[in-house]
């Protein structure tokens, strides 16, 4: 998949409590969650972010709680891809599972500035910062994870597996 979008830059250790505070965890509706995304770090973020934009952050993005509401809120706000130096484990899985692409690329994060436009090809793992013209390559997903991505998300992958199991049971 190819993406092109403006970046919003955040720092290290962005935790799931600031991505979506617990006071909004009474729903898992993407639009309702999106209205509050990042509000404890930038109260205006949900109003500023546009469809197709890209979040760029430092290390350990999404640390803290297991709330899947965090990537759902980010995806619901129209963010196309999250790029970080590293991701917290549960956030990484949640993001893959719901089909929100993520890219690990420390060098790009160091050199990118808020407002830059990135072109990202998640299939090739190639990223270009259009301001500098510099090309970067993303750390590839493990093959197992790539299969979940290819299936469109975890439940899609599991559903296919369950259907195959049922088919072979009746065959």
């Amino acid at each position, binding site marked *: 998949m190819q993406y092109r979008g403006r970046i919003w830059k955040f720092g290290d*250790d962005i*935790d799931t*409590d*600031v991505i979506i*505070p*617990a*006071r909004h*965890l*009474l*729903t*898992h509706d993407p639009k309702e969650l999106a209205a509050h995304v990042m*509000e*404890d*770090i930038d109260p205006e973020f949900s109003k500023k972010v546009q469809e197709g934009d890209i979040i760029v952050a430092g*290390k*350990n993005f999404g*640390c*803290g*709680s*297991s*709330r*899947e*509401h965090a990537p759902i809120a980010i995806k619901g706000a129209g963010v196309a891809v999250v790029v970080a130096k*590293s991701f*917290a*484990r*549960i956030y990484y*899985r*949640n993001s893959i*599972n*719901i089909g929100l692409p993520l890219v690990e690329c420390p060098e790009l994060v160091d050199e990118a500035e808020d407002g830059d436009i990135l072109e990202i090809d998640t299939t090739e793992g190639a990223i270009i910062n259009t301001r500098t013209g510099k090309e970067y390559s993303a750390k590839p997903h*493990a093959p*197992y*994870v790539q299969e979940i991505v290819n299936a469109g*998300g*975890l*439940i899609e992958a*599991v*559903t296919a*597996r*369950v*259907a195959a199991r*049922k088919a072979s049971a009746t065959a």
Partner: protein
Amino acid sequence: MGLTMTEKILAKGAGRDEVTPGEIVEVAVDLVMTNDVTAPLSIAEFKKTGLEQVFDPGKVVFVPDHFVPAKDIKAAELAKIMREFAHEQGTLYFEIGRAGIEHVVLPENGLTKPGDIIVGADSHTCTYGAFNCFSTGLGSTDIAAAMALGTTWTRVPESIKFVYYGTLPEGIGGKDLILHTIGLIGVDGALNSAMEFTGPVIDNLSMDGRITMANMAIEAGGDTGIFACDDKTRAFVDAVTDKPYTAYDSDPDATYARIVEIDVTNLRPVVALPHLPSNVHAADDVDDMEIHQVVIGSCTNGRLSDLREVADVLRGRQIHPMVRCIIIPGSQEVAKQAHKEGLADVFLEAGAIWSTSTCGPCLGGHMGILAKGERCVSTTNRNFRGRMGHREAEIILAGPQVAAASAVLGKVASPAALD
């Protein structure tokens, strides 16, 4: 080549003789848990798979604890979705009044046996490492998949061995040890790793102390925080279940990504100042930091031994006039025992609030939300911005004794400052 206990447990789950850090394996799970915040989404995703039944109702457990007793209509609806699904599927379910915070309730009910693989849609599922489980937090969709398949995938983590040695000073507990450790390695110091806690100090540490340490492995980014099974573990587990289990120990020649040795002899009671659990300082080095609230409870420090420590500090003393002190038992069992031992009376006499068991303020749910500019000392596990209320409120993490002493003095303080 030897294996770590984590590798052995995952190999067992994968039906193999050994596994190697870095590889991805699919493992059979012994228990799948969710709570009122994460279950509704898990249930919705589970239903998409086309399956009618969870893989094994005896291995699926639901615990309402975050926003209960329901804080508002939406919270009531979430708990209802979970309650109805649990009932219809015949899974394990712990209703309020007979339960409490998931990570306190599951061990109390014999559901966390040595050698088990446990996944929960809650990041502090790592708590059961105290019982020699490989247990880890996942999101709702991963849990839906585990409910459907009875398996989950995991990248086999590298293990980091922590060796605690020296003489543990009086008044230093599991919370001080784990905060000190996180301060040392940072909030991503164990990212994608298993933290293995060992050494003579750990051998002497109570089960409650170990539980507190395992609980906060996630605050260092760890997949799990794991301990060997010893007589203390067996005494705890055998008292609550008669199901058989197999414990796993690390081989002497197991490979570790890192070994961190910690001399505890000169440790002092610590706090983590805002806004990261790694911002650790000795409580007595914090100068005149006025506070407005103290929260004692949570899956980190809401157990009976924690409450006993708090009562020892509060007995015959009064909560500072400018402070609200909220004490929340980790479970109904803990509450009952606290009443029997007279601890609840000590809290009430001291001017504290004694509530029913709930996560409540720990995640900013209810029962003690902070206003702008307020500061709270809390025995919980996260001091992230906005976690307990307003984004401009501050949370300071501490063990139960420091929290109680701070409640009396109206500022961040260790019990030594009371004399």
